[in-house]
């Protein structure tokens, strides 16, 4: 069982008061009664001795009325029960062989009293004897006082003790409650404040209770709370500072990792570029022979057909025409694919060669809009059924930016072509009746950079190939529809401008390419 501080204080004070009550109600009256009785006995004995002395002197001086006067010395005392003069007589037996001492009351005052010579003290009276001896007579003064006064004094002591005890009890209770209130309440407030502080509330302050130790405790607690609050604040600030530093470190680490990845990527791309350039250069000459001779072969076959074929019989001519036709078809395919290969080689060479263009102040909004329409109409020319919604949101506050417009135009064209390809592919998918292909282009100016956003609502880019899309020759398009060099080339161009090319995509919902170019 837990006893509260308030209860302990109450119990302590009540115990002290009860002990005091026991002392004042029982012990003190008893001791006072004994003391009173002792003093009273002494007083009566002294009076008896005085009377006896007076009697002795009076008898010795033969002042017999003085004897009476001596006896009447105590007559005015209200406590007097009686005073007697007792005479000792020697009484012999008849043969005078033995004797006894007979005590006989010689005189008593007041005369109405007739005490026995051998009377002793009782509850109601105190009897004292004082012997005397003269030549005239031997005896004793017997003095008896009533104990009424003692009893009355005891009663007064008890009454006084009762009143004092009651008063002390009441005062004690009041003090106990006061103490309990003045100790318990501040201690409870201190406990509650400590709990609040432990819960992190440093705003709570204790009121000044008093100027004593409890008050000082409250002041010390408030000071401790202040110190804790300051320490916590400093700790928080340090934590924030550390957190910021940590975040900065993390950011730096991420940037470093990104830079490292980009560096590795760049190195890889550079190696690829060099390799590609070498291969392309070596392939370009044989390929020129293939293309040139295939075209010449077609011309020769056409010339053969018009000149020498008429010399053959009709049957042979028909057979020869069929063969020539097949050869022409083959040569056309060789030419077609040779030119395609030539295009790839030229692209590869472009990839590996540094740009030859010069930077000039360019209106990026106008450039983006121009290439968007160029891309759209180019696709419309190939596929008249193609249709898509184009949305633009150009930041009109943009100033002209210093870029190589041909290069950035190629980047934009690549991105627009890819976007249109993606929405076209999605529209071809079944259950896309309500699908509205949309390409959005927007520009905006940030603090120290220009941002161009190219967004489509096509199929998006699968997560598993996302880290490969900027690699050369990587393409998700079917064979013959993409070289896999567009995004790689775009990436290199943006990097060459000191910018960033990033992509955000969600598979099935679309992709957004973000071009960031520094303003300075």
């Amino acid at each position: 069982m837990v006893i509260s501080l308030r209860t302990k204080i109450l119990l302590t004070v009540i115990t002290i008061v009860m002990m005091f009550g026991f002392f004042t109600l029982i012990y003190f009256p008893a001791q006072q009664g004994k003391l009173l009785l002792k003093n009273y006995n002494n007083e009566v004995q002294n009076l008896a001795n005085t009377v006896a002395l007076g009697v002795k002197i009076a008898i010795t001086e033969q002042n017999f009325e003085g004897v009476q006067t001596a006896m009447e010395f105590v007559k005015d005392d209200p406590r007097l029960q009686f005073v007697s003069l007792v005479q000792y007589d020697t009484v012999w037996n008849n043969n005078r062989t033995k004797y006894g001492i007979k005590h006989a009351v010689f005189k008593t005052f007041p005369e109405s009293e007739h005490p026995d010579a051998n009377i002793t003290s009782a509850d109601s009276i105190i009897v004292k004897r004082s012997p005397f001896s003269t030549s005239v007579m031997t005896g004793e003064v017997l003095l008896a006082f009533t104990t009424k006064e003692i009893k009355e004094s005891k009663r007064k002591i008890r009454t006084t003790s009762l009143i004092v005890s009651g008063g002390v009890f009441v005062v004690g209770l009041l003090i106990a409650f006061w103490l309990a209130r003045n100790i318990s309440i501040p201690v409870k407030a201190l406990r509650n404040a400590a709990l609040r502080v432990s819960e992190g509330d440093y705003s709570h302050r204790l009121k000044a209770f008093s100027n004593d130790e409890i008050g000082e405790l409250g002041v010390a607690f408030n000071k401790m709370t202040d110190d804790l609050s300051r320490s916590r604040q400093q700790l928080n600030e340090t934590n924030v500072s550390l957190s910021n530093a940590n975040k900065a470190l993390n950011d730096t680490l991420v940037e470093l990792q990104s830079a490292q990845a980009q560096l590795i990527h760049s190195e890889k791309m550079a190696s690829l570029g060099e390799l590609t350039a070498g291969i392309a250069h070596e392939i370009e000459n044989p390929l020129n022979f293939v293309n040139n001779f295939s075209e010449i072969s077609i011309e020769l076959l056409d010339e053969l057909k018009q000149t020498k074929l008429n010399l053959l019989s009709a049957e042979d001519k028909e057979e020869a025409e069929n063969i020539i036709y097949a050869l022409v078809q083959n040569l056309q395919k060789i030419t077609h694919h040779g030119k395609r290969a030539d295009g790839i080689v030229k692209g590869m060479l472009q990839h590996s060669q540094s740009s030859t263009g010069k930077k000039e102040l360019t209106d990026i909004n106008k450039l983006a809009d121009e290439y968007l329409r160029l891309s759209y109409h180019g696709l419309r020319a190939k596929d008249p059924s193609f249709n898509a919604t184009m949305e633009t949101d150009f930041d009109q506050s943009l100033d002209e930016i210093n870029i190589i417009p041909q290069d950035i135009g190629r980047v934009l064209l690549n991105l627009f072509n890819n976007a249109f390809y993606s929405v076209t592919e999605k529209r071809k998918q079944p259950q896309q009746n309500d699908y509205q292909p949309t390409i959005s282009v927007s520009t905006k100016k940030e603090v120290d950079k220009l941002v161009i956003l190219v967004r489509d609502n096509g199929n998006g880019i699968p997560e598993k190939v996302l880290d490969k899309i900027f690699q050369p020759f990587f393409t998700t398009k079917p064979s013959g529809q993409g070289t896999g060099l567009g995004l790689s080339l775009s990436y290199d161009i943006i990097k060459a401008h000191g910018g960033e090319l990033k992509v955000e995509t969600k598979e099935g919902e679309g992709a957004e390419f973000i071009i960031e170019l520094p303003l300075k």
Partner: protein
Amino acid sequence: MAPKIFLVLIFLSIGLVAKSQEGALTVISNQRGAPAILKYSELRSILMGEKQRWRNGSKIVIALMKTNTATGKITSEKIYDMSADELNKFWLALVFQGKAPAPAFFNTAAELQNFVSQNPGAIGIVDQLSHSDNLRTIIIDGKSRIL
């Protein structure tokens, strides 16, 4: 020889007289109150506290020599026929019983005579009266001294 015997007889008689005078008591009183003549029985009755008023009604005041004086002892023996302690106890009893006022006891005859002379109705016993104006010797049974 005869004159010598005579002288011896004279000295003897003088000695006997002197001897007979030794232990004699004189009853004195104030001029006022006490009669000049009293019978011995009256005197004894007065001294025993039995009679406390003179014939004229005035109060009798007894004056005695203390029992530790020679005159006091003679008084207690001759008049009271008691020892000194018995006399004291006798008077103590009388006083305590309220039957009589206690006598006044004195150490010297002069004090006693002075007391008697100053208190009308006072009667005292001395060995011999010294002259005093306000005192007189009471004749007891026709004698001025009690032998």
